[in-house]
């Protein structure tokens, strides 16, 4: 298909991609910086009787309503941020134990607590393992608007193909910016199917009477997750083959890091980037491969080390490289800053 560039905000992009992926039903509660997506859906739904919309009394209810929609076989989704993201972990763990295709976009904002309202990378732990979770979910991290367009579509497909809760972890920088997007890159949408009132009777529970009963249930979920992970896991390794310094960064910071690497390469600096695209499952092998020639690893993130801890745990046995941290909790990181930091340690 011919390239079709449109000038869109990230909010428009999430909405457009969700509709292309077959989303039919949205339940949510407003919170900055994700509110505009909800407003956009409400507007679409007002014009299109096939689209369902429910504004709930809080995020726990929004998530429970999403689960209701999924049981009815509708591609149901929500968006949230920050403290709303905390509340929605409650229904999300229900979706995990019931293997439901719960799709959620999260626009990270500063924390702890109400924090700030536009940008951060501090909701990574929450997205990966929030609640009393074993992490039976997929977390995608788009780094720019084009990727946001494609990943949002993909998230619905992953959720429905593998029956896993799936989160798109973005931020307000990503969704508030206006950028050209090639909207011809449409991915064929997975089919939805009703769980309730479809074929045989289903009695679904989340509370088990005995430890061994739950263990048996969990073992099945873990095995399914492991198999699905191999298909789902994604990362980008950029100029890492000969890199002396490898930057580890994700999301918006990952994009800034890529720009920095491209610039530094022009100055003949052997620098590379490892950028996970799925934050869970995590591409351990890709990460290990990326640091084969590295004697320094720069971890850049807008948090106090949530990502850094994943990186160090992953690479424990794989490298003796020295770690350098560029941690700016709740603040943005520019390509210039990353470039300057590399020059300082090169």
């Amino acid at each position, binding site marked *: 298909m011919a390239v079709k560039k449109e000038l869109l905000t990230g909010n428009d992009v999430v909405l457009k991609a969700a509709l292309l992926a077959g989303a039919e039903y949205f339940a949510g509660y407003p919170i900055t910086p994700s509110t505009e997506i909800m407003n956009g859906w409400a507007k679409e739904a007002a014009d299109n009787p096939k689209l369902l919309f429910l504004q709930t009394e809080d995020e726990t209810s929004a998530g429970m309503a999403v689960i*209701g929609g999924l049981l009815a076989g*509708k591609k149901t989704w929500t968006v949230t941020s920050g403290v709303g993201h905390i509340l929605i972990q409650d229904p999300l763990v229900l979706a995990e134990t019931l293997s439901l295709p719960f799709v959620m976009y999260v626009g990270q904002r500063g924390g702890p607590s109400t924090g700030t309202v536009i940008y951060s990378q501090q909701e990574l732990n929450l997205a990966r393992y929030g609640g009393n979770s074993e992490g039976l979910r997929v977390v995608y991290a788009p780094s720019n608007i084009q990727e946001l367009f494609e990943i949002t579509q993909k998230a619905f497909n992953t959720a429905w193909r593998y029956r896993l809760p799936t989160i798109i972890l973005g931020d307000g920088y990503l969704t508030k910016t206006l950028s050209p997007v090639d909207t011809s890159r449409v991915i064929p949408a997975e089919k939805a199917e009703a769980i309730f009132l479809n074929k045989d009777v289903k009695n679904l529970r989340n509370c088990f009477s005995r430890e061994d009963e739950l263990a048996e249930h969990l073992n099945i979920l873990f095995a399914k997750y492991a198999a699905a992970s191999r298909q789902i896991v994604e990362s980008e390794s950029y100029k890492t083959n000969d890199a002396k310094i490898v930057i580890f960064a994700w999301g918006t910071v990952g994009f800034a890091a890529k720009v920095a690497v491209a610039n530094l390469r022009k100055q003949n600096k052997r620098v590379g980037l490892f950028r996970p695209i799925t934050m869970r499952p995590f591409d351990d092998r890709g990460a290990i491969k990326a640091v084969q020639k590295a004697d320094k690893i720069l971890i850049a993130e807008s948090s106090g080390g949530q990502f850094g801890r994943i990186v160090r745990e992953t690479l424990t046995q794989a490298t003796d490289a020295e770690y350098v941290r560029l941690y700016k909790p709740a603040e943005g990181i520019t390509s210039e800053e990353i470039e300057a930091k590399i020059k300082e340690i090169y």
Partner: protein
Amino acid sequence: MEPRYPKCLDPKTKPSNFCPGCGYGIILKTLGQVIDEMEVAPRTVFAVDIGCNLLAWNYYKLDTIQTHHGRVTPLCVGYKRANRESVTIGIAGDGGLYAIGLQSFLHAAHRDDPVTIIGVNNTIYAMTGGQLAPTSLLGQVTDTSPQGKFTYEKPVLGPELAKEMASSSAYLARGSILNIPQMKGMLKAAIERQLAGHFAFVEIMSYCPTNWKTDAQQSIETLEKLEETFKVGVINA
């Protein structure tokens, strides 16, 4: 002789795990009869909360979801909106509805979401062993009010409270397991009202012999006494 169960009950999961003499069995069996008589089983979806009602997750041969504590209402609301043809019925305890799930319950009434919610009022948190509930009466001794002292003067009266926020078309009633025909009529009316497109709620006064520490006769007497405060009847027709 084999006990005669309503058709929609699953005989494989009977006898159920409720304590001997528990009120839940009476409520669930009556609901089963209503579902049979109305012939709505093929389009009924049932949701249970966490509380003793969680034990009903496989009580019926009906699609059933066990939700989290207090979350039965939003799940029913979410489902019903996606399947308007369904009969969506949720059940929760007085803790699930009037404490942790109160705002969801009231907002469903406020939005007039067409679901049928059943609230089982035994004036305590039964599943966790008998703690103070929003429905406990002044002076009531529970695990968390060992001296019978607590700050509120009056218990939460669920249907009366919901009336403050509910649409005028909502059905709100309080029944009791001491009057099964009346309770049955209320459950039927509550399903009919959902099918007419409106919110419907029935609170049912029920006994918990285990936590009340009562024998059969005392359970009945205690419930009769409670009905002086929790007046049985239709609160919004």
